[in-house]
């Protein structure tokens, strides 16, 4: 019985280490363009090679600006409309949420990354996925705002790397992105919980046999 306990511990320990979801907190100072009738764009797309599945949520959207209330959605985007939570899957080439927006003084939302590519990278995929957030000072989404990337118009991009990590590239000085926040137990916690369960089971059986 002792041997089986040790083997169980070894098996559980050999499971690939699970990673936590990644959450970024976005806080954009839009005061400089307050009152501008513009637009917001969010897209989350796979890469051109072999890409592992990943999901992205836009959470807790808040602003004193005004959403136009008529989003244009392409690809695997569910939920919404803003400020309700949006969920993007990277299952198709172009997954996009675009909506008119009259800017107020600020804009906040959280981005949560999760799914196999984040939580359990397979090590064989060759492409990551990329999230892009853009602000425009026109309703058509052609004039970038609050960004130094005037070529592509991206305010911020987040790359989901092949190892499950994420890389943030921020072109907007008006945008602050909070450090990643973990939202689920660490993978080692699962192992300890399972080991504890097995330990308790052993104690109960030992007690019964001792009688």
């Amino acid at each position: 019985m002792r041997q089986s306990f040790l083997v169980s511990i070894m098996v559980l320990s050999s499971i690939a280490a699970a990673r936590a979801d990644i959450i970024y907190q976005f806080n954009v100072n839009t005061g400089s363009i307050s009152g501008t009738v513009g637009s917001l764009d969010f897209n989350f797309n796979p890469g051109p090679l072999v890409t592992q599945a990943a999901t992205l949520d836009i959470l807790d959207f808040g602003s004193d600006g005004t959403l136009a209330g008529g989003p244009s959605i392409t690809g695997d985007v569910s939920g919404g409309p803003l400020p309700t939570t949006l969920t993007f899957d990277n299952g198709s080439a172009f997954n996009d949420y675009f909506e008119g927006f009259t800017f107020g003084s600020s804009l906040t939302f959280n981005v949560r990354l999760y799914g196999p590519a984040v939580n359990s990278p397979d090590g064989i995929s060759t492409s990551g996925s990329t999230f892009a957030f853009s602000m425009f000072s026109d309703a058509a989404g052609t004039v970038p705002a609050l960004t130094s990337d005037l070529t592509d118009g991206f305010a911020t991009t987040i790359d989901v790397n092949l190892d499950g990590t994420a890389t943030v590239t921020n072109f907007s000085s008006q945008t602050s992105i909070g450090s990643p926040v973990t939202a689920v137990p660490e993978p080692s916690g699962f192992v300890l919980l399972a080991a504890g369960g097995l330990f308790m089971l052993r104690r109960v059986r030992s007690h019964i046999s001792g009688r």
Partner: protein
Amino acid sequence: MLASTCRTLFCLAATFASVAWSQQCSCQPISPVSASANQCSQSGPSTTNGCGPFPVSALNAARAILAATNPAAAAAASCLNENNPACGINTSFSNYNGSNPTTATGACDHHDYCYSTCWAASGDFDFNSHKSVCDFDLHAELLRVCAVAEILGQDPQPVIDACNFFADAYYFGVANIPIVSSSIYGGDQTQACMCCSSSSPQPNISRNNASFATPACISNPPSGPPPDNSGNWTWDPTANGGQGAWVWTGPIPPPPDNSGNWTWDPSRGAWVWNGSGNPPSNGGNPPPTGCWHWDAASGSWVSDPCGGGGQPVSPNPIQIITSGDPNDKVGNKGAGSPQYVRSGQATNYSIYFDNIPTATAPAQKVMVTDQLTSSVVDMSTVSLGKISFVNNLITPPSTPLATIGTYSTNVDLRPAQNLIVNIVVALNQNTGILTWTYTSLDPSTMQPTTDPLAGFLPPGTEGSVSFSVTPKPAATGTQVTNQATVVFDVNPPINTPIWANTIDSTRPVSKVSALPTPELSPSFSVQWSGTDVGAGVQDYTIYVSDNAGSFTAWLTNTTATQGNYIGSAGHSYGFYSIARDLVGNIETSKTMAEATTNVTTAVIIPSTQVATTASGLAYSRVTQTFNGTVTVKNIGTTMIAGPLEVVFTALPSGVTLANATGSIGGLTYLTLSSASLVPGQSATVNVQFQNPGNVQINFTPVIYSGGF
């Protein structure tokens, strides 16, 4: 008793001479043909109604004649009784009771029976003689009645005179009135000898027909109308083996059959099907006379010119096969429906002629004439081809006819046929008329045969002539037409169909399409195309130059418009094409390459030495592109020499690399790094894709080491 069997004029004369004739006549009877196979079992008169019926007016007319010479007799004959015109007690002609050879009673009935007894078929008597016997018998029997009445003494002399008068009158009537001879007697004999029913129409028996044979009985005309209501039908009782048939007697040719389902269209000279349903397959049988072809589109038999065209067919008509049949007038097939030929190319023509199988005589003389146009063809180039008829083939010299003048030859058909066929071919260069003349000669005189049944081209055989001539140079699109005329003996000339060719004097043009530079692989695709005014491009010859060397043919006369050229890495190549059109015009020669390329020396880095990864692709609304990065890492143990290029192969349709460094071998590529990569080192390059269809973007990266 014996009188009824006396058959000679001598006996009859004796009969007339004496009322005691029965005691004096010792003539032997001539047997009728009662035992003959020709004697019908139902022989006998169709009617036995005594002497009559005669119209009263006829009897009165006879009494008037009698009154002129014997008024008392005429007065006695006042009863106007046809069987007893003398009106006496014992003068009734029905009193005669002869029994041999008939069972008839009365002289007139006996006469009827005689008419209805087949004598003529025996061969002993001709038609005319037999009737005379019957008539003489009648006369004798009538006179006998009168004689017996006189002997009995109960009738006065005027009555006896009247009796004799009417006996003569009746005889005169049956012996001399034509209707009695040609119709009544003929009909009775027909029934008796041919066993035809009394209602059958009678044959037109000649009274002089000494060999009255035994034709079959004649059928009644059908109860219905003729096959059509054209009014062109006549019932011929002798046709169809004596069974009778409707015979076409109209001025136009008869229809294909007698079904009544055909209507004559005079505007087209055609019998058109108007029956219910479809016409017979392929029209069934053509009209029985004339020359016809079946026009399936209009469902009609159309009259062809064979000396006919709706007129009676000539004894030796010819048949020129209509267009579509190769056996008519054939020239160079040429290219396409305009039958393009090259300017300056000799054109061959053959002219075929048939003596149709239904012709009734062989053709003795046939003349084929072909009118050439000097403004279109070069008369000096006319050369004769083979000449044929039936199984004979003549090969004239190939020397142009203009050089040898006239060509003439004799073909001796003996011993199979006692004819020599003289063939003369002549070209009148002034008029352009080229003529072949076949003449059937009598070997003994070497003059045209006078035997109407002799001729070199029997029915059902054909002949042909051929020649070649070169058209003069002309612009593309110029038509060259040719038509021949064939004359059989004295029949009217018949034109062959017109054979038309179109000149193509324009050279084709072509070029090799531009090639990617450099080519990634030593084996690369080369494409070319061409156009031609006129016949169209037939094929191409592709020339190649290797490293600026002289051009040599790579592909010769190929109909393909692309090919894979196998070169060598580091070599440069130039290509041009030379097209040939369908009539043989060849494109103007070239000396310069139309497409050039070189084969790269860069090499592919195997996947065991490099790992290629990519980021996700963020979509820019500004540029409307998908943007990301591609990273190449040296995972090997040796350095990879720069520069390095990423070639994007297998990109989906509609997806393009917007920021490509260039293209190679038809593929876009990005220069990754100009420097080398040591083991473990990576290099990253931005990628930007245009993807208007938002399709899944993917590609197979191929990493090259070495400059393109």
